[in-house]
């Protein structure tokens, strides 16, 4: 889909100003003006987009409607029909989810002597981790320090982050880079071994460690291979639908469902690590998303029902640059690395309107303002609006061939649709990218419920109300490792009582009492419903019947 003629006219304006813009630096938005911009244009501040929870540990707190519906959802199981004495797997540590966080947790739990089982909804490694392109932050250059990294993380999160978690994040960072290299990850380096590090929005030093623009893929390929090498048992296409507890209120396993046959599997585990990732596929406020197919907030639902406290659930990250054209890749992540390499954001007239390397919520809001308020966006034939990300200027700034070398994934993705990003800019608009908040944890990944640990995007507090580039791949590694190790240690000490699903019965009772049980869907959602439905020709009596594993959405 090459750009239609009218879009090419706007591209000519971008080309006309390019030479001048090469030396032009747009001013940063001062800290004092950030809040006003966010309140006016960031989707988190659209009041109708959120509502208060009526039940559970975070009752009275707000979160996006789409998330709140699932968090207050009905269980997929009837506890009284399930015989918990028929245990299929009896392990020390059950890891639910296997992206970067789950894989790291499984490896560390095993290293610490635990018998580990992994359960994943899709395949091993099918997770947002593989889509992470730009890099992993770690303050390891001589002019950098974990202290500066700490300041960046806190400032980027508007000082709402949990300081203990941020300290763990920045102090472990160099060590996890080394850990991955010892496992065989190929970092971009200079010939003398110096890490090739780039800058990122909201970072005061160049500290992004990359593997071309396939950073998360490279990390995941290696972690997954190591799980296979060590023979760690894993069940694919078998997500958890409910946690199991014991009669003393500790988490003691999970119920898994086979996505294809609806068969249930009962796992008793002394400790459970939740590593189920984020929620992009809920399409909050109708936004397209960068997230993988399984990102439906399942872990949040399971943890909440077991009584775990959530934090910062009213803030989602909209990545400033999702593809706005062509239609086939609407919402696809255009890595921030394009901006770290020097590409500017420009409007339909070819003029800059924001300094491109600021925290993501700021840049996203500025793009929305430019399109919605100033009317300076470019409209695609299908009605999507966007601004230009001027990629060709990268080769002018850093030399011919830089784009091809540093951004092979991006060149390939757009090339498939006949757009050459070395010569033409990309049309972009914010896209739903990341769940800033999540299950509250301590620096060892422990949640407020004994026996339940969490790592990666499903947990919250690390990034406060806004995450910076390169800190999510760092988060999954740091807290995946910490949670895996802590879960293994905990499993050595703990004595489980009698298994029970009483918390599910209590939960359903609470929904009834709040008068919302019949108004909420079944959750966890497990998969998005993209399949076009035929018109509803079913007689009403069939709707009383639920299929055994209840994969069908009610």
């Amino acid at each position, binding site marked *: 889909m090459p750009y239609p003629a009218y879009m090419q006219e706007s591209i000519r304006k971008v080309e006309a100003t390019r030479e001048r813009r090469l030396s032009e630096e747009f001013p940063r938005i001062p800290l004092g003006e950030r809040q006003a911009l966010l309140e006016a244009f960031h989707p988190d501040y659209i009041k109708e987009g959120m509502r208060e929870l009526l039940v559970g540990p975070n009752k009275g707190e707000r979160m996006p409607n789409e998330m709140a519906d699932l968090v207050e959802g009905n269980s997929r199981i009837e506890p009284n029909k399930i015989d918990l004495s028929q245990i299929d797997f009896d392990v020390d540590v059950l890891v639910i989810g296997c992206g970067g966080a789950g894989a790291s947790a499984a490896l560390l739990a095993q290293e610490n002597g635990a018998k580990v089982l992994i359960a994943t909804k899709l395949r091993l490694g099918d997770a947002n981790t593989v889509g992470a392109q730009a890099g992993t932050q770690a303050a390891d250059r001589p002019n950098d320090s974990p202290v500066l990294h700490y300041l960046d993380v806190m400032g980027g999160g508007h000082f709402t982050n949990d300081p203990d978690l941020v300290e763990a994040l920045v102090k472990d960072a*160099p060590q996890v880079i080394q850990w991955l290299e010892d496992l065989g990850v190929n970092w971009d380096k200079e010939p003398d071994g110096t890490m090739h590090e780039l800058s990122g929005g909201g970072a005061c030093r160049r500290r992004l460690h990359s593997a071309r623009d396939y950073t998360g893929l490279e990390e995941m390929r290696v972690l997954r291979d190591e799980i296979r090498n060590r023979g760690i048992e894993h069940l694919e296409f078998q997500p958890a639908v409910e946690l199991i507890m014991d009669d003393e209120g500790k988490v003691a396993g999970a119920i898994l469902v086979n996505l294809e046959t609806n068969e249930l599997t009962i796992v008793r585990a002394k400790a459970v690590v939740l590593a189920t990732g984020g929620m992009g596929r809920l399409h909050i406020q109708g936004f397209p998303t960068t997230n993988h197919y399984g990102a439906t907030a399942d872990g949040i639902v399971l943890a909440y029902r077991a009584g775990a406290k959530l934090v910062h659930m009213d803030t989602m990250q909209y990545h400033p640059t999702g593809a706005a054209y062509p239609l086939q890749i609407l919402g696809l992540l255009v890595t921030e690395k394009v901006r770290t390499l020097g590409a500017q954001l420009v409007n339909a007239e070819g003029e800059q309107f924001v300094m491109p390397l600021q925290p993501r919520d700021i840049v996203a809001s500025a793009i929305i303002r430019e399109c919605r308020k100033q009317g300076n966006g470019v409209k695609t034939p299908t009605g999507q609006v966007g601004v230009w990300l001027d990629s060709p200027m990268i080769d002018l700034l850093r030399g011919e061939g830089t784009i091809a070398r540093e951004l092979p994934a991006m060149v390939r993705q757009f090339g498939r649709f006949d757009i050459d990003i070395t010569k033409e800019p990309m049309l972009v608009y914010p896209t739903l990218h990341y769940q800033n908040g999540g299950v509250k944890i301590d620096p060892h990944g422990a949640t407020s419920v004994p026996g339940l640990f969490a790592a990666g995007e499903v947990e919250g507090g690390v990034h406060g109300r806004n995450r910076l580039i390169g800190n999510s791949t760092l988060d999954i590694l740091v807290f995946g490792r910490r949670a895996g190790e802590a879960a293994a240690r905990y499993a050595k000490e703990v004595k489980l009582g009698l298994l029970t699903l009483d918390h599910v019965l209590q939960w359903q009772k609470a929904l009834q009492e709040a008068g919302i049980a019949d108004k909420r869907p079944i959750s966890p959602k497990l998969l998005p419903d993209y399949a076009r439905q035929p018109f509803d020709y079913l007689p009403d009596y069939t709707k009383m019947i639920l299929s055994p594993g209840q994969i069908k959405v009610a």
Partner: protein
Amino acid sequence: MAEETKVAERTKMLDIYIMGKHYRVPEGLTIMTALEYCGYRLIRGVGCRAGFCGACGTVYNFKSDPQLRYGLACQTTVEQDMYLTQIPFFPAAKPSYDLEKLEPTGEQVLEIYPDLIKCFGCNTCTKVCPQELEVMWFMSDALRGDIREVANKSFDCIMCGLCAARCPQGLVPYNIALLCRRLYGRYLSPKSEHLEKRIKEIEEGKFDAELKKLKKMSEDELSRLYQEREIESAK
């Protein structure tokens, strides 16, 4: 329903065939979104939906042209008269090894994947690769023991498995390449002194006092430090 399909309803319709059955879908969908538009709820053969995870490698051909083509379902646009199917990801030869006990040599790679010598250079692997990698050439680099070159040429591999699916000799280029990249990263890539030094400093507690101070600061103080911090040039 996905936003993209809703918008597309107003556009031109195409005839496609899913496992032989005729459907009409709007122009501008990918193979994956076309399947969904026709009512298929996907469990297998779907992942990141952005060309990174390798879950949706697939084959297709056309009504009047039976020659098989290869691609990622999430990255390939449907065309008039396309015949589609889904192929689930299937397991491939993957010997276990302990990276710590390996040598970064060609002999080592051959010891783990002895069938490598059976490659007779038909180049089918290269032709099917949706990433357009020079698969046969890195297989030949592997045979010669040039681990660095295998790592370089195979770097953008998303491990979709299409090369292994088509190899007439039953080889698994994507796993062989992964072994080589791990050997390169672990043993051959130059060490980063600045990284090792920083890890040592952190272990010695060099930054602990300052971090402790920051952790206790009021938001006002912290935000002042944040605003005053010097920002290094991005270049």
